[in-house]
Each structure stands twice: as C-alpha cells, then as structure tokens.
C-alpha cells in the first residue's frame, strides 16, 4: 500500500539550498513585464511606458524595504545575483574605504562569492583574516574580537551556512563590530527568509539576499546598503540603482523578487523544519555509522548534512539520482575543482568525512512521503555501497 503511494511520486528534489522552484504566483506576476511593461525605467521624465515601469520597480523596492526593515528605498540595490551582491558589498566597500585601512575579516566557510572576492582584494594589497570555525561550523567570538584592528574596514560573515546549515551568532557579532570603524556585511543568501530579519533592530551595514532560494526567479540578487555606507560601484555604466550598479534593470526579475518576498509564509518554515526532523531521526535511527555535519540547534530549518561512513558521496548521490532523488555531496569527485568540501575541512572533518557527505535541502514543495521514500532508498543504497567498500570491515 505504501508502494502504491510512492509510485505516484515522480522525482524528489532535495537540493533547494542550490535553488528552488519558482512559485507559479511569482511567474504570473512577472509575465506582464515581458509582454507589456518592457520599457526601461531610467528616467521619470521619460515616456509613459518608462514611468509605469519606474513605478513598479519603486513598488518592489518599497515592499522589500518594509519586509526587511530598511529605512528607505535607496537602501535596496538590485543586482544580477546573490554572488554579485556579495561582490559589490565586499569590493565596493573595500575600494571606497581604503584610505581608512586595508584589513578585512571573513570566515573560512563563506560562499565562494565572498572568498574569491576577498582573495582578489588580497592580490591588490588588502590583508584578510580568515576566522576558523569549530566542529559545528561556528566561529569563535573571541577570535573575532582579537582579529579586529584599527585598520579593519570590513567584516563579512554569513548568517547561515549553505552546506551544513550552521547559523552564526549574529547578535553577538554585530555588537562587537558596532564598536569599531568597520562595516558589517552579512550574507543571508541561503538563510533568508528562513531566518527573517528586521534591520531596524540590527547594526548590520550591508546584507545580501537571493530570491531564487525562496521561490523567486534566478538572475536577481538584492543588496541592502545602509544609508551613509561608503561604497564604490563595481559595474560601471549608467546611473542605475542609486548609482551603485550600472545596467538595464531586470524588471521581470525585480518584480518576481518582490513577489517572492511578499508571499513567503513563515508557517511553511515550521512544516519544513518538521520534515527535516523526520529525515534526521530516521537517518540516525535506521542507518548505522552516520555523522551529522553541522549543529543540532542554531541550524537552518531546511538544510541537513550527513556523512555516511565507508562510502563515497558521488556514488550515493548518483545512485539516489537513479531513483529520482536529487541531493548534493561534498565529495571531491562531485566538485568542479576535484577538491573535497572546504567547508567540512574547515570544520576539522577529515577528507574521508567530506567525501562521504550528503546535503539534503528542503523546500515548501516537499512532503512526508518524499522524505520516507528517500530514507527507504538511502538505506538500500548505503547498504549496497558498503558491501562493495573495502572499508568498515572487521
């Protein structure tokens, strides 16, 4: 009888930390901006086509501003992606504030868009401190305190980790940074809106959002830039986005992003969290020799990462894919540079643990049947691969 139910499931997508299915309501909202409202909004003194689009984009800025507690519309900067928002936040503030200092602080577990941005700045003469993390992926607040110098101009730290779901203590971090001249940039690309934010109550200067992670369209990122922040433009051209990002506004994506901010329901978060709890308890109770990568508490409600000992992650992911189940792994064999997950390694995990790691990430479109089927298939696959493996035999 269970089988019958499961046969109706086509494919199971557990890779929502990478990207999500765009909500049909979002798509509906976007369509007129391809069909009728295609003009550019550059000038309010332009034709009526342009003014209509200008109004719509202003409306999007206003809604997002209200959702995150920004104080004015100019603080909302649309970019081409979360990656671009991180690039602008980091390179833009570094360039604009180099007379105040050349030192930046980040962590070893940031998204590549942060790490590669600071690495590029290092080549230009900036100094970067990379904070370590503990076994659960949390930074050491004392190390942060010790690392801040008089010439530190920017501290960039993610809120939630995209591979393990570990959440940093941003309350504490912002109190520390607030007493310095440095700006605080927080990458919330994977954590928002699972962890909502009210920027009125924080001392965060810059914050990255990525709407396609919460049912919005791809090709759009949002950077919050608090009024008064000194930041330089990194894409040159026209005077779009409060003169912070040149390029024709991607109106359909901006409108889609707005809709994604608007319709996200916090009720979904608790449902997703209960699916994660179900997956976690079934894996831990029914599969031997597994190890959680990340934290139990202070963890994003939609990301779960396990190492299955004695087997390699690409094999698990591929076998799951044959069953129609999509996950990712921190194995070197899966990555584009053939290196094991730098995040798990930074957490002190061995290469072996990183190679055997699987990330499951959920969305509002998943349900209990899917989780149960995933566990069933996972058990078979792990058992099979362990039979094949030379490891773990007595």
């Amino acid at each position, binding site marked *: 009888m269970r089988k019958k139910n499961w046969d109706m499931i086509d494919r199971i997508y557990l890779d929502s930390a990478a990207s999500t299915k765009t909500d049909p309501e979002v798509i509906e909202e976007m369509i007129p901006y391809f069909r009728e409202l295609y003009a550019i909004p550059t000038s309010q003194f332009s034709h009526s086509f342009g003014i209509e689009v200008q109004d719509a984009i202003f409306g999007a800025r206003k809604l997002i501003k209200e959702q995150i507690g920004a104080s004015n519309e100019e603080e909302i900067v649309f970019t081409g992606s979360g990656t671009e928002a991180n690039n602008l936040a980091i390179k833009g503030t570094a360039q604009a504030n180099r007379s105040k200092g050349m030192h930046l602080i980040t962590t070893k577990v940031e998204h590549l868009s942060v790490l590669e941005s600071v690495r590029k700045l290092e080549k230009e003469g900036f100094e970067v401190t990379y904070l370590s993390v503990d076994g659960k992926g949390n930074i050491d607040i004392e190390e942060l305190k010790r690392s801040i110098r008089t010439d530190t101009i920017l501290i960039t730290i993610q809120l939630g980790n995209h591979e393990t779901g570990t959440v940093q203590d941003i309350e504490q971090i912002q109190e520390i940074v607030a007493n310095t001249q440095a700006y605080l940039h927080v990458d919330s690309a994977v954590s928002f809106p699972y962890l909502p934010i009210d920027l009125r109550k924080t001392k965060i200067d810059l914050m990255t959002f990525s709407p396609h992670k919460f049912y919005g369209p791809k090709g759009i990122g949002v950077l919050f830039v608090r009024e008064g922040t000194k930041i330089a433009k990194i894409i040159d051209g026209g005077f779009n986005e409060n003169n912070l990002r040149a390029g024709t506004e991607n109106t359909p994506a901006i409108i889609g992003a707005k809709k994604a901010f608007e319709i996200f329901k916090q009720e979904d978060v608790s449902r997703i969290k209960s699916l994660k709890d179900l997956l976690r308890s079934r894996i831990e109770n029914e599969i031997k020799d597994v190890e959680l990568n990340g934290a139990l508490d202070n963890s994003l409600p939609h990301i779960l990462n396990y190492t299955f000992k004695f*087997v390699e992650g*690409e*094999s698990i992911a*591929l076998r799951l894919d044959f069953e129609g189940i999509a996950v990712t792994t921190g194995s*070197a*064999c899966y990555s584009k*540079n053939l290196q094991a997950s730098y995040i798990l390694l930074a957490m002190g995990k061995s290469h072996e643990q990183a190679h055997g790691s699987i990330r499951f990430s959920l969305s509002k479109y998943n349900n209990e049947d899917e989780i149960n089927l995933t566990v069933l298939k996972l058990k078979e696959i792990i058992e099979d691969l362990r039979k094949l493996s*030379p490891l773990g035999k007595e």
Partner: protein
Amino acid sequence: MPTPYTKLVIEHFKNPHNVGEIESPDVKVTEGSPACGDMLTLYLKVDPDTRKIVDIKFRSYGCASNIATGSIITDLAKGKTVEEATQITWKEAAEALGGLPPVKVHCSVLAADALHSALEIYLEKNNLLKEKKTTTIEVIFQKLSHVINPMTGIDIVKSKLIKSVTVDNGVIIIEVDLAEDFQFAGNIREEIIERVEYLWDVKEIRVEFIG
C-alpha cells in the same frame, strides 16, 4: 537520464562484476586511500603452472567511474596470464566502458594501478622480476604520465605541462607549466605526490607551478 556517464559505466556501477574478497589470495593490494577520495582493494589468485589469473575480485570506496573501472578491468584480466594482464592499460579499460568524462579519468586510473601493482607484487614474490630500479628522470616522467589533467583528460606529460624534472639525492623537483591558481592545481599536486612518493629512494618532492 542525462548523466555524463555512458550506459556501460552506469551498468557496471550499478551491478559491478567480481566484487568481494578471495580467501587466501596470492596477492592482495590496496591503491589510493579514503582521504584522496578513491580506494580500491584487489585480490588475485593465479594458477602457478599456467600463470593464468583464475580469480580476481575487488572492493571499492569511490565514485562511479572508479567502481565501473574496477568492474571492467577485473573482467578484462580474468583468464589472462600474468604477463598478458600487465598489458592491460587504464585506457583500454576506459574504452571498454565506452569512454569516461575527462574530469573522471583520474578516478579510473586507480583500478589499473591496483591491477599493475598486484601483478608486479606477484612477479616479485615469485622471483620473476628484475632488480630494484634507481629513480631517474625517465622513471619520474613515466610515473607522471599517469597524472591526468582533469580539464582535458590527457596526462600531464603528453600535454607538455612538465617544464622540468630534477632528481638530486632523493629530492625530486617538478615544475609544472600551470598557474598556481589553476582550477585543478591542488588536485594535480596531490596526484603527482601520490605517484612519486612511494618510490623507495625518494625522500622529498617539490611540485612548483610556474605557469
């Protein structure tokens, strides 16, 4: 389903042949390690009179191409004499699988290495091998010809990526004509070290990216 693997690779990955162990094998050899992401243990049973491989089995901790190559190369070796089996190359195994994505070639090399190591050990054990060789520049080049540039799937010797090799009192210096920040620099460095470090007279290896 669109995967970068051929049907044959997937068949061998899903249902690998010759999996398991042999009781009291003539040779048991392990190549790779879980730390480098792939590991393969090979068991060999040889008929002492005919020197034919009568049984061959493997276990693999690795990705699909590693498992599939372990499966096909044991198929290829079974029934051959030890001397014939030494002629089996990873290239032949990869071709028998209908090809492998370039980025995955290095994973399949491990299975061929395990086979060759096992055969070498068999020959050595039975006093059929020539004497211990001193590591020379030629030996290093021969070893490096098993290191694959994952970008192209072609080995770094054939791709003319080896700028120079120096052998001086057990210290090996290898200059690679790639930039330090090349996408696969870390991976190529690891592979070079793995290929050379076990040689009996090698004390130190320095891999320098000078591109």
